[in-house]
């Protein structure tokens, strides 16, 4: 069978066997949890509790301002001891609520199981999702209820669940698909109901045959849902590339998937939705892969939001060798952090620890125009030209070269034989173009 895929892209070494075959470990809940008030794209939440107050597990402790936001819940019962500014995996400093765990695991009153999920209307489903603080768990952390809000003149006809997990090392979604297939299918059913659509697809790369089989079996429960087996290629899990592979549709430049009648969610998000709809449990825990060559025993964990990276790393036997980098997320798109004293957030799919390897970093050569980046770019850009323009600070020209269409997958920088940090140059150009746009809109 010809596997569906997109054009461009690269083949990456997987390193997935480190963690893909062992069952997920439930991490012991630590004594203190640091719950950041900003775990989504959009305006940060305001604290809903005061220092010294007692909170219950699943209680709302931060509420968002504006439509594009998601509330934050306490992941344990205990006492709020502090609200402080802390490092955040996104590479910024964010206020965090510190909750001291009283180990009572006492649920908040709002958490109760639903009696009949069949009678829920799309509006009710959306409000449940909003109140459960669910955001895109693949890493983008876009508030999920916003995606489901009807857009004038756009009918969603397909919901795609993203079970691709094309980043090397990461296996949390893979384990989730193996361990909770029924919840994923149920969650997809609720999403389809929330957006009034009959067709659900689950995209999985062909390097996870066990997950494909599990999901195909589970999908028999709902006739509208089918599994799409995709070719193993990076960045297959990128939203626009996934939509193209599954449906053949092109999401227009600057447009959202809804423009072509599609909604994409991560499989982990589907599980969170099932928990919220069926049991009233908000998003307070997630699967996290801890891996990399700098860690003693890589593994997958079920972790409460607000647990420190350090607790996870200790559980995995700690560091080995000389630690060079700690990455929140995968090696292609994840962000490096400078300390392990940093909390797991809703979008943390993995924690990678990289060892220092001698003589690994070779010098940067001039571009030899091999065009491997051009061939690899899934957005059909010319990374080499954009980087050259960015180096000469010709921001306007980079904008004309569609720099804003870059999805920052990193394929260009991975493949470049001259070791040019193409993506970073492109990011810098995007930064400058955005700044210029803000300036012009402010002037108007």
């Amino acid at each position, binding site marked *: 069978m010809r596997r569906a895929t997109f054009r461009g892209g690269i083949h990456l070494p997987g390193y997935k066997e480190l963690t893909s075959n062992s069952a997920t470990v439930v991490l012991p809940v630590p004594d203190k949890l640091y719950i950041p008030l900003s775990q989504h794209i959009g305006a940060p939440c305001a604290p809903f509790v005061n220092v010294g107050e007692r909170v219950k597990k699943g209680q709302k402790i931060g509420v968002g301002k504006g439509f594009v936001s998601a509330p934050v819940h306490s992941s344990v019962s205990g006492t709020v001891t502090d609200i402080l500014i802390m490092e955040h995996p996104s590479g910024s400093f964010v206020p965090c609520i510190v909750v001291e765990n009283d180990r009572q695991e006492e649920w908040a009153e709002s958490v109760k199981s639903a009696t009949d999920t069949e009678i829920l209307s799309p509006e009710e489903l959306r409000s449940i999702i909003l109140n459960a603080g669910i955001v895109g768990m693949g890493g983008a952390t876009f508030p999920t209820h916003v995606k489901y809000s009807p857009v004038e003149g756009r009918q969603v006809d397909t919901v795609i669940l993203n079970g691709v997990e094309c980043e090397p090392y990461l296996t949390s979604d893979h384990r989730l698909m193996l361990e909770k297939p029924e919840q994923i299918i149920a969650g997809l059913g609720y999403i389809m109901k929330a957006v009034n659509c009959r067709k659900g697809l689950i995209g999985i790369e062909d390097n996870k045959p066990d997950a494909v089989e599990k999901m195909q079996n589970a999908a028999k429960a709902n006739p509208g849902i089918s599994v799409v087996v995709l070719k193993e290629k990076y960045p297959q899990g990128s939203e626009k590339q996934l939509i193209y592979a599954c449906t053949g549709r092109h999401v227009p430049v600057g447009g959202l998937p809804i423009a072509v009648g599609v909604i994409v969610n991560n499989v982990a998000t589907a599980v969170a939705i099932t928990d919220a709809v069926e049991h009233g449990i908000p998003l307070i825990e997630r699967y996290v892969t801890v891996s990399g060559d700098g860690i003693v025993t890589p593994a997958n964990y079920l972790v409460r939001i607000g647990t420190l990276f350090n607790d996870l790393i200790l559980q995995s036997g700690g560091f080995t060798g000389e630690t060079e980098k700690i990455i929140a997320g995968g090696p292609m798109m994840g962000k490096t952090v400078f300390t392990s004293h940093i909390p797991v957030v809703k979008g943390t799919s993995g924690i990678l620890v990289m060892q220092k390897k001698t003589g690994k970093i070779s010098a940067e050569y001039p571009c030899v125009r091999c065009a491997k980046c051009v061939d690899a770019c899934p957005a059909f850009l010319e990374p080499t030209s954009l980087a050259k323009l960015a180096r*000469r600070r010709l921001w306007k020209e980079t904008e004309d070269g569609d720099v804003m269409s870059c999805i920052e997958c990193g394929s260009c920088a991975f493949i470049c034989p001259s070791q040019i940090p193409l993506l970073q140059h492109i990011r810098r150009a995007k930064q400058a173009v955005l700044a210029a746009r803000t300036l012009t809109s402010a002037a108007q």
Partner: protein
Amino acid sequence: MQSYFMIIISAVLVNNIVLSQFLGICPFLGVSKKLSSSLGMGGAVSFVLVLSGAITWLLQTYLLLPLNIGYLQTIAFILVIASLVQLVEMALKKIAPPLYKALGIYLPLITTNCAVLGVAIINIKKDFSFAEAMTNSLSHSIGFTMALVLMSGIRERLEEADVPKSMQGTPIALVVAALMSIAFLGFSGLI
């Protein structure tokens, strides 16, 4: 027919006005930094070149030769070209202001462009008929524009190159011209 074809091939490729006859080097080096300006210059030169080619041919055939004053060729031709350039400039300003804006600043540079006078003289030297002279002028201007446009494409790419300091600017442009000219040697023998 064959001879017209030969004139075109000869003027555009084999004896390219810039790369092998060394006419019009100044604008070739000066106005080839950007593609847009090289197109403008190419257009302006082509226009003047064809027009002056026609007028000088007529002048030579019907005035200078009958009056037996062929030796006044240089003076007469340069007069024609100078006036023509000025005339074109004025006319464009009035009739087609946008075109004037695009080509205007290049027009004054054309008076002393040896390509224009050079082609006018070549037309006479080769004893071309009027139609042949026109073909020749047009082909030369195409060859000029082509060389200019190719050069500007290369120079825009050289902008990002790490050219040694003393080579920057005109020297590297001359080297590019040399290498282009080597490549164009491949056409020799076509006619």
